[in-house]
């Protein structure tokens, strides 16, 4: 129901799903997508705490806003790096990127 723990669970699930994506997707863009999911999980947390616990409702919203902004920047940088990699490898399969080890 519309309680704090519901939101927290949803956030945790989102985070977990994101994590799963990061851990098993071979497509780098897929991993990036998963990271966005994780950030969204955190954002839901902020919003939920903001709604149910926080003294000032504005703060949580602002944090969420900034996280979004950063996520956008992050996505931009991530995508550019992925593209750079693609131009080298002609692939965005993360498993191609395992030359350095040990």
């Amino acid at each position, binding site marked *: 129901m519309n309680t704090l723990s519901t939101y927290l669970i949803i*956030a945790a699930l989102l*985070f977990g799903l*994101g*994590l799963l994506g*990061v851990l098993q997707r071979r497509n*780098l863009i897929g*991993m*990036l997508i998963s*990271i966005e999911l*994780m*950030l969204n*999980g*955190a*954002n839901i*947390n*902020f919003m*939920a*705490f903001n709604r149910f*616990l*926080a*003294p000032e409702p504005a*703060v*949580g919203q*602002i*944090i969420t806003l*900034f*996280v979004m902004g*950063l996520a956008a*920047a*992050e996505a931009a*940088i*991530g995508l550019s*790096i*992925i593209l*750079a*990699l693609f131009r*080298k*490898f002609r692939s965005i399969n*993360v498993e*191609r*990127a*395992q*030359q*350095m080890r*040990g």
Partner: protein
Amino acid sequence: MMKWVLFIPELYYVLMAVVFFALSLQRKSEPRRLYTWAVILSGVGVLVAVLSARLEGMVFFDAYRVDLYSQVFKLLLALGTFWVVLTCSELEGIDSRQHAEFYLFTFICTLGMMMLVSAVELLTIYISVELSSYCLYLLVAMRRKTDEFAETGIKYFMVGSTASGFMVFGISYLFGMTHTTYVAELMKVLPGMMTEPAAIVGLVLALSGFFFKQALFPFHIWAPDVYQGAANQVTTYIATASKMAAAAIVIRFVGFSGGESAVFIKLLVVLSILSMTFGNLVAIIQKDIKRLLAYSSIAHAGYMMIGILSMTQRGYASAIYYALAYLIMNFACFMVILKIADDGHNLKIKELAGLHKRSPLLAMTLMLGLFGLAGIPPTVGFTGKFLVFAAALEQGYLTLVIIGMINATISLYYYLIVIKAAYLLEPVNPYPPVRVDKWTKSLAIFLVIAMVYVGIFPDQFVALTEAAARSLFI
């Protein structure tokens, strides 16, 4: 407004960023001129940091605190940046068309880290971390001719993003528990809540993000690949300046717990031991010097953690001192590597062969630096370890300290292998002579003297770090 004075170092770095942004807009890239500018500007930056060292006060609605703690770290950051820039005379690892951007990102990154050490509000901290991280992602990915190391950037980025995901999630729990984003209030409230799972998990998750920057086990996974894959100067920057900021923020965050939770301390102990042991053991088998130093940095994160986890003023002070020591000696090692691999390639240990003939000064710098990393007196590394261990033993962590010492011995083994290469091996094919210009020479001599001087006359430095640690709690 007088208060803006407090913000001067940061403003100065903004100015530098602007200058290089302007320079990056030029049609033609002139590496030499860029280098000269960068050296001059970052040199003045050190000066600014020194001059503003004694400033104190709060700005930005208490989100930003300028005190000795932050100023010391800012000085270290400025110094690290300056040194790195100084070694950029042959910036062969990076496409010459992108040198301006290289300096730009470096300075913005330093700016981000400077804000990080001063920020006392979670959102500001988060933003600062991300600012510096993004710059680093970009710097790492900038390496030229990267076929061999192309994956570096993406690895760094993925691990970093995941870790920052953890961190945000953790911060959200902290926010939920304490209803505030201000560090000062957090520190008041949080120690009383350490029994709640959310508080401690929030702290741990938030710390993961910083441990990532510090390359503490198990958040180290990027370090070897990035150290190896990034351009030499970038690696140097990551290994020196960026570590300072990480240390600063880890100290601040660990302090949140107020030493209330034994389990939390135990966790840190475990992490510290794992980090030292893993780093040192794996470093043994490395062939590439930068990769080796990456593992050694993992181990050093563990040593530093010993000081931090004692949760006393002395502990934090020792960690600050350790950071200073680490900056100097790590940089000394990297400087030698940079100068030997002046065409920007990755240096193998065996390529050091005959260094004592090729450049005795660099060989000596390298030796002292490595001995310092191994914690051998009279170098600064020893004094750092000594202080860290003293702080830990004051709290009774005898076993931890012994494990730390065992690790120091293991680490000595691989440092000795490098020293052996530099001093003992004769090269199979003669390597080209090392070009050592006047600047490098004086920098090397300075580093040697610094390593020994700070090591055997630690009094004033210890006093400084203790004052800095004290200001953490005011």
